[in-house]
């Protein structure tokens, strides 16, 4: 549990961080809250030559409004997300999901942007960001660019960020009136990763489901959208339990989830169906 030797760079600005990253390329890693990177380094599963600490960049921290978009700084801690009134008002799903992340100690150190940039498909926030249609803003030597969540998560622990880019903020479309949310997570102990998690956002209109967005945690090498479910749900009468269940049964379509100590692949597919049905019903106010 002693990491390999590394150099440490404290960034005093995003530009600082970007130039340090540009200098060291994929030898470097960005350190934010450290809740994912440090354990990996201590186990020597990660051994970056340079750690670029962005932890003190105050301007990357906090939540603000920009028209119909909520802008969450990448360094905003889970605890801040959880307790932020703008998040509760305009992106309540994030608060619900964040409440299930690990424990208070982790939530006070770990950051929203860090857990997205780490891109662990077992992490809870990537699926929620995907379901909410968030956009991720990266800053590199050439300036800023915006990456839609559906393009951001590339593979297991891999994102569309290039080695010289820093994730600076996350833009989340406000979902207000008419939307309901729920995160259904099955894990064996409170501090364990989700075996499977389902993040659901559902807009009801006049007794039927107008629109649904479903994000899946730990059902593949990246977070996934359960598009088949979303399509099947659109327009369904909320009193038609059987149709809802049939829609949820498509949650595992096209997935190939991992097999590990918490569950084999087919069990995860089963869970995705059950948990999707439960998440949708709760998000739609039916349970």
């Amino acid at each position, binding site marked *: 549990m002693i990491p390999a030797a590394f150099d440490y760079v404290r960034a005093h600005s995003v530009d600082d961080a970007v130039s340090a990253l540009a200098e060291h390329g994929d030898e470097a890693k960005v350190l934010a809250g450290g809740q994912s990177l440090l354990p990996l380094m201590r186990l020597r599963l990660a051994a970056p030559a340079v750690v670029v600490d962005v932890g003190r960049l105050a301007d990357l921290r906090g939540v603000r409004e920009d028209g119909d978009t909520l802008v969450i700084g990448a360094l905003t801690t889970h605890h801040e997300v959880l307790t932020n009134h703008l998040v509760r008002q305009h992106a309540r799903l994030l608060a619900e999901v964040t409440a299930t992340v690990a424990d208070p100690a982790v939530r006070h150190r770990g950051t929203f942007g860090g857990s997205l940039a780490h891109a662990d498909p077992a992490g809870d926030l990537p699926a929620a960001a995907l379901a909410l249609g968030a956009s991720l803003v990266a800053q590199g030597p050439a300036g800023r660019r915006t990456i839609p969540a559906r393009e951001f998560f590339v593979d297991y622990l891999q994102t569309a960020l290039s080695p010289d880019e820093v994730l600076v903020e996350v833009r989340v479309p406000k979902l207000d009136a008419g939307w309901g949310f729920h995160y259904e997570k099955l894990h064996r*102990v409170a501090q364990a990763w989700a075996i499977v998690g389902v993040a659901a956002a559902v807009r009801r209109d006049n007794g039927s489901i107008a629109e649904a967005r479903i994000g899946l945690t730990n059902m593949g090498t990246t977070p996934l959208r359960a598009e088949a479910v979303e399509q099947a749900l659109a327009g369904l009468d909320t009193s038609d339990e059987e149709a809802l269940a049939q829609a949820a049964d498509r949650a595992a379509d096209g997935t190939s989830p991992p097999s590990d*100590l*918490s569950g084999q692949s087919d*069990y995860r597919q089963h869970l995705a169906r059950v948990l999707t049905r439960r998440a949708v019903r709760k998000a739609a106010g039916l349970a």
Partner: protein
Amino acid sequence: MTATVDKAESVLGQPMRRKEDARLITGQTQWTDNVTLPGMVHMAVLRSPMAHARITRVDVTAARERPGVVAAYTGTDLADSWSSLPMAWTVSEDLKTPPHMPLASDKVRYVGDGVAVVIATDPYAAADALEAIEADYEPLPAVVDMPAALADGAPLVHDDIPNNRCFTFRQDWGDFNATRARADVVLKRRFYNQRLIPNAMEPRSVVVAPTSATGQATIWSATQVPHFVRIFLALNTGVPEHQIRVIAPDVGGGFGSKLDIYAEEVIAFVVARKLGKPVKWTETRSENYQATIHGRDVIQEVELTATADGRVLGLKVDLTADMGGYLQLLTPSIPLLGRYMYPGIYKFEAHTLTCQGVFTNKTPTDAYRGAGRPEATFVIERIIDELAAELSMDPIEVRRRNWIRHEEFPYTTVVGLTYDSGNYEAATARALELFRYDELRREQAERRDRGDTVQLGLGTSTYTEMCGLAPSRWLGETGYAAGGWESATVRMLATGRVEVVTGTSPHGQGHETTFAQIAANSLGVPYDDVDVIHGDTLTAPIGLDTYGSRSLAVGGVAVQMAAQKVVEKARALASHLMEVDPGDLEFQAGAFRVKGTPGAEKSIQEIAFGAFAAHSLPDGMQPVLTADHIVDPEVFSYPHGTHLCAVEVDTETGLTKIRSYVAVDDVGKVVNPMIVDGQVHGGVAQGIAQALFEEAVYDDDGNLISGTMVDYLVPTALDLPAFVTDRTETPATTNPLGVKGVGEAGTIASTPAVVNAVVDAVRPFGISDVQMPCTPERVWRAIQQGRAAGGPAPKGTIAYGGPQTATTAGGAE
């Protein structure tokens, strides 16, 4: 409750705040890893990445050139400095004890087996330099699975031990086969107590100062057994025992995992003496998972015979226990420590136990909270529930028909143990009331009737255990190398304060509090005036340390006896000073009073000063008010209790949630009820952890794949219900305090209570066992089997599923 009590008698049985806690929770204590000495260097161990391989080359030359490195050694370099690590319990005549060198030099036998060490000026340099060691291995096929290891032609962990069989053992009490011929019911089950990782909060740590002002080498170790460490370091290295001082400072938990003599203690000792520098080694959590002992890992084939009206006749258990790659201090004795507990609280006519130990390429096993008794209790409490199900009887009623009734004590069980006291009826009645058993049974029936997604299950465990290790004569008869006595010194200082010296070595239990209560009560002095000294072979030279729920029942009794000796000496001196006959003195609330003469009294503190000044002593009396006592128990103590667990099983996901848990324990007289509650809470949590969460899983190549806390799930308060605890009190008749021991009780009791509850919830699906830990996936797969068959699963279906240690793959027939 104030900390200072005038009426000294009232201290006993009170929830006194723990003397230890202020320093522990404010960071004012010293753990072994906090010890820093001038010139101290740090050790890191290179461990085998392979489960089984021949070592062809270990070259530390390059490591010696690394920055900060002071020295590096292979096992061969140090071979003349040490001998094989100790194994202290020869459990059978055919026991094979292979050499176990502190560093392997011929073969490695588990992932984590040490092959070389680096000593450097800081722990980081030492860890980095490990990468420069060149170690070549010729891989050998690993044996991971116990039945496979026993098969002819299996790879041999130790080349000269055929079939990897460490020992075999058989004992018959009564004629089991005769009961089978008469029985209406014969039940067979295969239970598996999975491998567990003890997970003490403080990892192991050792610091060795090779010299000191007294000439002794001083060893600080995060150990449960400083006295053992001293003796075995002397025996292992040839350094005279009196030149070794071992200190166990505050120690952060052990659960048996620090009841051992570890390679790193010997290596650090040898290397410190070689270099003439203090050496520190502290294990990482990853090392702890690989190289500190594991617990359990026992397969039990069980056969129960009974009558149609639910009376048990005979019990047969065939037990196979995984030793791992080597024998540690007590490895082969663990299954045998449970050997007398299979009949539990029930009246059997016959019992047969066969037992074999097997070497595999896994981390050695040894004592883990309960050590053999949880495994035995699991068998008997699970199979009793199975009998109830077979006969469609209530599990409580089956127990009532078979348990020893309170008026039958003392009762000698089929295996010849005499239980001195107990009241199973009373504990069970109280537990049923607290649990609202009948109400829950009604709810269970309703949920079953309406096919609720969430099914309710109720589980019972009416356990007993033998603890208070141990009568020395018994230990000798069973092949143990040492005794089971315990010592205490009680001395009153010139100023009236009291020092209690105990040979036990607490690591979280609160002896400083409990033993102070005992002494304060006997001496009639304020609780705050008593301090307890322990865990240092210089200041507490005589002792056998802490394990097996022995500290109070043996060490606490020694404190009581020594304190009474002090009172008797004080009485003699008081009678001399007050010029009255000793028979005319009464001792109460810390003072000697002349009967019938108000005002004529002397406090024990005054007497203590008189004994110190020694100006006027009776003829032949030695100065100073002090006394020693060593207790060697004649028998074990037998706490018991009734634990009831209600679980909700989500039949769609397989997830089990504990809804309520009631523990009514009878641990005899209670010295500090708060500490007893703490022991029960912690023990129950640890037993639940085995039932639902924890498993050390190896792959076929012998890699520990649950190698971090991400994959080895230790539950926290967030995962456990609020426990409802209560006690009945049936004093032990075999010691003057009437105490029984509580350190392991919760762990022993809770595991079968939880599994019984899980099985009860899903039994309508045809399931008769769920393998531990009862993961959601395992429960779900069992239910799926039933549904695939178009109805309940075939009777006897066991919930398997998911990756598991190969050992578990067999399944019941």
